[in-house]
């Protein structure tokens, strides 16, 4: 029923479009790693597309598992084999540019952005992150925020601590929590440590320093960056020892069930607590920008692009139009637990957390995430996982900084 209503509303509002382009036919293959809870959101978007272009048969090619690691492997073998899907999910930014754009595998979408008026509807900071001098390479569908600190307000009250606004404050209250048998900060396996690292680095370096790092203007062996590792090491003292065995959900669970006080995780954690655990945002769980990053929005975005040689190019372009449209983004994002990349989305469709994130998205300084593919290419990201292991085993800032600098040189980030 809801599907029908959505379809009807959209058909009315986009009536003109339907008449103009309803004649498309054939197939459209969409490649993504959205299964399970996120699959529902993708399905809503596909339903919208099918109601607009009933002649097109959509093939939903999903490869499930682990933040897309399997899907990306399958995609790479398909692309190398000359069998690209019509459009594929990819993290906006360097993960797309450093792998596919420099390989001349993507079509420039600048014309589409002009035609659809997207220069006005997407923040310019975002468009910068998904562009090179040669063009704009993908249509961002959603925005997640990386630098968020999660907690349970009731528990904090009981333990007598305030939400820290800087890491120094955190390090002051952490012993208080430990005395009460509470783990100050919950952590999961390798990539969640890197995720924490990027929030710490943003706090130490600030948005300008963070950007300088990725432009190669700030060396990874700079004392300022070594300071990041030092602080990160001090924070790790207050995390759980079984971190390598835990998924990010289990780390969030520790906060929810009161074993731990805080967790730094992207805002899919809000979706998990809201949709899966049934907690009310703002009441049952609270959030704040990760310490020292107030006013900065570290973003990541799933986007869709147009591969060169897409078998059904016209259908794919129609898909990209739906992905970038207000209706499309508002159909997808409330279900996915993310906010629209557009600044004109209908906020009444979103829950309390997402409304607050959307407000920040429109007012904060925007920077890109490392772990989720915005600021560094895949070669660096892959190497950084190893750097993180080096640090986690040895806790040696100097060594980690040198290793990071070495991979930055190899991957062409540092000059």
């Amino acid at each position: 029923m809801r599907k029908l209503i959505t379809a009807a509303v959209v058909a009315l509002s986009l009536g003109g479009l339907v008449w103009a382009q309803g004649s498309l036919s054939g197939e459209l293959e969409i490649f993504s790693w959205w299964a399970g809870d996120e699959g529902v959101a993708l399905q809503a978007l596909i339903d919208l597309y099918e109601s607009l272009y009933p002649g097109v048969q959509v093939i939903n090619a999903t490869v499930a598992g682990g933040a897309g690691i399997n899907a990306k492997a399958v995609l790479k073998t398909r692309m190398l084999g000359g069998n690209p899907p019509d459009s594929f999910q990819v993290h906006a930014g360097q993960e797309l540019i450093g792998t596919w754009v420099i390989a001349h595998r993507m079509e420039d979408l600048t014309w589409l952005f002009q035609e659809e008026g997207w220069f006005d509807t997407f923040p310019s900071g975002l468009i910068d992150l998904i562009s090179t001098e040669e063009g704009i390479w993908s249509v961002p569908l959603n925005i997640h925020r990386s630098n968020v600190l999660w907690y349970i307000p009731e528990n904090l009250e009981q333990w007598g601590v305030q939400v820290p606004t800087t890491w120094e404050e955190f390090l002051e209250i952490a012993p208080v929590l430990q005395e009460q048998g509470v783990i100050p900060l919950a952590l999961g396996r390798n990539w969640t440590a890197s995720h924490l690292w990027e929030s710490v680095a943003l706090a130490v370096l600030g948005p300008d320093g963070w950007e300088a790092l990725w432009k190669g203007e700030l060396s990874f062996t700079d004392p300022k960056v070594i300071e990041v590792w030092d602080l990160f090491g001090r924070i790790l003292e207050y995390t759980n020892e079984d971190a390598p065995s835990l998924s990010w959900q289990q780390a969030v669970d520790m906060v929810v069930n009161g074993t731990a006080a805080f967790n730094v995780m992207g805002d899919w954690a809000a979706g998990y607590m809201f949709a899966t655990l049934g907690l009310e945002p703002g009441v049952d769980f609270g959030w704040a920008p990760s310490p020292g990053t107030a006013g900065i929005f570290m973003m990541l975005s799933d986007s869709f692009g147009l591969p060169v040689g897409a078998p059904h190019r016209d259908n794919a372009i129609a898909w990209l139009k739906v992905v970038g449209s207000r209706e499309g983004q508002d159909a997808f994002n409330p279900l996915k637990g993310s906010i629209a990349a557009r600044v004109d989305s209908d906020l009444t469709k979103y829950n309390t957390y997402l409304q607050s994130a959307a407000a920040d998205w429109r007012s904060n300084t925007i920077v890109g995430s490392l772990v989720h593919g915005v600021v560094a290419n895949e070669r660096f990201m892959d190497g950084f996982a190893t750097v993180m292991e080096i640090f986690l085993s040895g806790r040696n800032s100097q060594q980690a900084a040198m290793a990071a600098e070495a991979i930055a040189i190899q991957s062409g980030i540092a000059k």
Partner: protein
Amino acid sequence: MKNRRDRLIAVLVIMPSVILLGIFVYWFIGRTFYISMTDWGKEAPLAVNPVIHFVGLQNYKELFTGILNGRFRQDLVNTFFFTVLFVSGSLGLGLLLAILLDREPRGEGFFRTLFLFPMSLSFIVTGTIWRWLLAPRGGINVLPKLFGLPPLGFEWTSSRTQIFSFNWQDLPRVTALVVAAVLACLTWRAVRRGRPRRAIIAGLCAAGLVAWYIWGSQLVPPALPYPEIHGFNLAIVGIIIAAIWQFSGYTMALYLAGLRGIPTEVREAARIDGCNELQLYRRVALPMLKPITLSAVIILGHISLKTFDLVFAMTGPDHASTDMPSVLMFVKTFRGNQFAEGAGIAVVLFILVAMVVIPYLAWSLRERSSL
């Protein structure tokens, strides 16, 4: 006439599989070797026509001495310990179960099926189950609580404790010493059997290695500017337990078949000669099971060298303490786009597996031709 036609048909029939094998196995192996000697992974590795240069053994040099590839070297050490402990554990437990079942206890059929059951699961399923069982704050660790005891504190796969640590750069010298010791043994045997030429050659080689160990190795500059410590990560114990759980049923089946194949007359003769049950197994049954042990070692050995899914399911793609070369190969190739280095790891694995399998093939072919 008929003979020639027969031969023609034989060739025709065998041709398709020869061609397919040639392309899909041997050509691909060759191609992997070639890719491992290129620099595919620089600039734009996924372009339609990526720019690839031949760089010789550069990638191997990088893997074995590069500063960033310490992870690969630790992976090799991990694989070594994993293989040794997993193979011996599976053999030991499998043999024990087989001997127990060989006593024909009540419900033998039931237990046989029960022990074999884990074999039917895929490593991914086994890995997921054991990840839950070995979670530090659940599963096995809280089991003692049922009996009113305090929970166990071992971190299992989260542990970062390392024992038997050694400096990777000592490896060539230590290897030289081990090989020298083996050669010394050979010399001793050759002397005892009255083969002077062999004794002299082996003895000279051993002496040369010892000399190199004492004087020569000081002249070789160290590959890395600092000592690189690797060792046995206790985190692997969890992976080993899961793997043994899965495969001991299989070795049990092999051994049980072997035990059942020992003729009753042999057993009875041994008993008449005054063997007790323990001696019967040690002196009579075990020697007769030698070929089975050998095949089991080969099969388990090459499985363990290639282990990927179990580690991937239990600790994910980036847990250095339990990492294996195959996992690193996957992430390096398909996440980091380093196709050449990934192929290099594949070749190293290929050579390791070949070192296990080829002697076995040679042995079994010789065995067959002597029949």
